[in-house]
């Protein structure tokens, strides 16, 4: 019974947050925190009620394990980010609406994950799309919202057509039953699969639908970017899961051509995932804006998640589900760290910053831990999930996906390190000399996220247990663990041991360091300067075009944006021609077309 209350309460909460904001903006912002934390608490306590069904008005819901898991991830990201809302209230044009839409989109995602019939699913999908469309232009640019909405409506329309098609064939809208007749008809199944999965791809931001991510993530309000990247993107993963697991794709495509045991339809999508990994990595490396950089990294991580979901196996699928959680919290933490910097300095441009560690060490630490997880380095959560995905790929011998996965993982060292070096380390600019440290309310979510990232990297048992339940529900073999050891086909991973040995190495290293002579503290400008006298710290900072030699290798790359831009231009040209031919103000043109029409009528009449 708890879940229907939570969905309804979230909608009511959205309205009340708006009303509270009318009285006091800060109180309205805190209301978003209270409501989202409340939702998180109810979700965690209501785990025993998985499997319950309920209806609100004409909408039907069912709490599945996967829906519960996804909504948990989503609410966690929303709750953590909401701590930041109060700091941006005076900077937004419509702060009351922001608070309203913030909770409204959260309510929408909850409804989406619990929906048990396709119409409910579609309604909540639209709720989320619309509410986020109105939040994005409150940041830097309106164009971002237009692109976001355009790409989202491709997804929405695809879902709607998919739903209609499924209804025509099976005559029911209940998710569990609607897809059953499709198994006998591979061709229609392919069409339905492509349509549904396309909706998923637009939301995860898989190539060629990735163009909205950097625009929307990069220019949304600083408090909404973490939610977009950590939360809303995962809706796409949910739809992709539905199309693969509930259809179920492997049974429906039993007869089609297979590559390494993967049906061609799925293999093609995996290639899209692989392209997204490579493209996201390469583009992230060359970004000059910290938020856009993390946005492109979301494209790359979306590729991992998609590939894992499409594998539908014991290891990669588990890795993908875990990566979804790890990426959500790590990317939210990274975005929040950048938001703190933006709050204090007013910019997210990498080359305008530097030396932030000397003013906000906790933010630095948050960013560090987040990127270690994003890059998949132990002992953080991201390592476990990437390890699982790669083990699964190695088991099946999917070499091209693995190639992309390796490129994405090593490439992520490059792009995550760049803000670390140029924003947080290096020279502190004179104008940032007197910056204050991060406010207490910002410290709370950052510390919580740090602890979570580390905890699930060292002790992933609880999380993998839930993922095992999801796998059982989807009809595949669950990921196996004995104690803290994850048992894969080709090897084992004991995360606790990795952590302990790492700690041991660190301890020895610390002892060596402490035993030796104490060092003398010198300033940042007191460095080797090739015998030059340098007095300007802002010029003595390596930040712009960080990987210039590497970026030069692919500077003339083709891009979807350019391609779409070219199409738009051609369309514009066509319009100009049509205008010049038919809608001219010159009398001669009017006379010409009138006579042509008259001639045609006459000739046509003669024919009759």
């Amino acid at each position: 019974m708890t879940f229907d209350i939570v969905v309804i309460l979230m909608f009511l909460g959205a309205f009340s947050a708006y009303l509270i904001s009318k009285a006091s903006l800060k109180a309205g912002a805190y209301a978003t925190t209270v409501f989202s934390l409340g939702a998180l608490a109810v979700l965690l306590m209501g785990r025993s009620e998985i499997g319950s069904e309920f209806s609100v008005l004409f909408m039907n819901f069912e709490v599945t394990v996967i829906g519960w898991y996804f909504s948990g991830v989503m609410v966690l990201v929303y709750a953590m980010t909401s701590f930041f809302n109060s700091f941006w209230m005076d900077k937004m044009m419509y702060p009351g609406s922001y608070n309203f839409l913030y909770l409204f989109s959260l309510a929408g995602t909850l409804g989406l994950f619990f929906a048990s019939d396709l119409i409910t699913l579609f309604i909540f999908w639209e709720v989320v799309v619309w509410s986020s469309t109105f939040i994005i232009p409150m940041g830097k640019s309106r164009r971002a919202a237009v692109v976001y909405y355009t790409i989202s409506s491709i997804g929405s329309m695809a879902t709607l057509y998919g739903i209609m098609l499924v209804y025509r064939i099976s005559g029911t809208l209940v998710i569990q039953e609607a897809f059953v007749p499709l198994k006998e008809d591979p061709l229609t199944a392919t069409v339905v699969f492509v349509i549904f999965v396309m909706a998923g791809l637009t939301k995860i931001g898989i190539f060629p639908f990735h163009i909205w991510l950097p625009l929307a993530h990069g220019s949304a309000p600083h408090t909404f970017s973490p939610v977009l990247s950590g939360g809303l993107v995962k809706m796409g993963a949910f739809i992709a899961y539905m199309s693969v697991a509930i259809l179920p794709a492997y049974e429906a495509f039993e007869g089609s051509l297979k590559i390494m045991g993967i049906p061609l339809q799925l293999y093609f999508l995996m290639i899209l995932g692989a392209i997204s990994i490579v493209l996201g990595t390469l583009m992230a490396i060359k970004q000059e804006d910290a938020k856009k950089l993390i946005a492109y990294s979301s494209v790359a991580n979306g590729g991992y998640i998609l590939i894992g979901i499409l594998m539908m196996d014991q290891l990669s699928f588990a890795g993908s589900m875990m990566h979804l959680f790890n990426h959500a919290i790590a990317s939210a933490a990274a975005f929040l760290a950048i938001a703190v910097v933006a709050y204090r300095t007013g910019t997210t441009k990498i080359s305008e910053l530097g030396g932030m560690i000397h003013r906000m060490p906790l933010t630095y630490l948050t960013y560090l831990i987040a990127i270690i997880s994003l890059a998949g380095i132990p002992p953080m959560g991201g390592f476990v999930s990437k390890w699982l995905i790669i083990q699964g790929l190695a088991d099946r011998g999917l070499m091209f996906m693995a190639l992309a996965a390796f490129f994405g993982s090593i490439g992520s060292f490059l792009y995550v390190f760049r803000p670390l070096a140029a924003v947080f380390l290096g020279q502190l600019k004179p104008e940032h000399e007197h910056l204050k440290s991060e406010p207490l309310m910002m410290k709370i979510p950052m510390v919580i996220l740090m602890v979570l990232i580390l905890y699930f990297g060292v002790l992933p048992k609880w999380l993998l247990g839930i993922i095992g339940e999801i796998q059982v529900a989807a009809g595949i073999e669950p990921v196996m663990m004995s104690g803290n050891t994850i048992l894969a086909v080709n090897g084992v991973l004991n995360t606790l041991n990795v952590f302990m040995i790492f700690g041991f190495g660190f301890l020895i290293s610390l002892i060596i360091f402490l035993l030796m002579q104490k060092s003398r503290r010198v300033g940042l400008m007191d460095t080797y300067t090739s015998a030059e006298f340098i007095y300007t710290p802002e010029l003595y900072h390596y930040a712009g075009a960080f990987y210039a030699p590497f970026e030069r290798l692919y500077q003339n790359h083709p891009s979807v944006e350019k391609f779409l831009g070219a199409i738009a231009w051609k369309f514009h040209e066509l319009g100009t021609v049509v205008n010049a031919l038919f809608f001219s103000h010159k009398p001669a043109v009017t006379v010409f077309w009138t006579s042509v029409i008259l001639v045609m009528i006459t000739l046509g009449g003669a024919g009759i």
Partner: protein
Amino acid sequence: MNLVNFAYGLLLLLAAFVFQTTLTGINRKVVARLQRRRGPKFYQQFIDIFKALSKGSTTHGWVFDFGVIMALGGIMATAIFIPFGPLKAVPGMDNIFIIAYVLAVGMLGMAMSASGSGNPWASIGVSRALTNMLAYDIPFMMVVFGLIFAFDSSSLSGLAAIQREGGLLGWNVLRFPLGGIVAMISLQGMLGKKPFDSFIAPAEIASGPMVEYGGRHLGMLFLLHEYSTFIEVSLIVHLFFGGGATVLEFMVKYAVIYTFLNLVSNVLPRFKIDQAVTFFYKVPLAMAVVQTFLIIFLGMGVA
């Protein structure tokens, strides 16, 4: 895992340090002979390390110190995972992907500390080092991927044992010659030896990441260098040269490979960083993809 494992780990660290540092010393002598010099004493490397450790130094803030500690700690932890011939400090932890990624902790620590010094030369060096890593690691991982698929194991000692069953001809370097060549080239990149040493390039960017270090910091980075060399060369010995049934066998193989790469390094000039990337993506990556393709689709070389 219990205290005994940690004690073994400590012993392994000591052994690896003594072995690799002696070998570095001997190699300094070998290189000197190549250049018609007498060269330093074979234990000169020990003297250098301990001298650096004992000297005073300057620091640029807590992250400068913390990064060095994290780097050496991460690399030492990785070294503990490596089997020293047949000896393993912690059983069941020598998974190749674990090693490859734990190794990155050390790299990240080092990069962080270097950038934390505030010296732009250091950041340039780090940017080159990371680009270099993106170049050499992908062909290498690709070949390793093929090996794992071929033998259904991602444990270093497991893969080494499988090779030893087939005797000398069972070595992966002979079974998968393309992959073996790729691995050797990648190893040259991992070790930062010429022609892939643009990230330390003393004459151009003032030793890159190393520019600000002295005293105990520098001494610890020397240690780090010895350990990372130990890890990287051991990886190749285990993956492609059959590991070692005895400690001696492992040490001999290791010494031969290391000295060979050092000799190669000393007769080559230096690639620019973009040349290194282009080279790795044109030649070794293509070879690695062909090799992996042969393994996965044709089963070539798999017994």
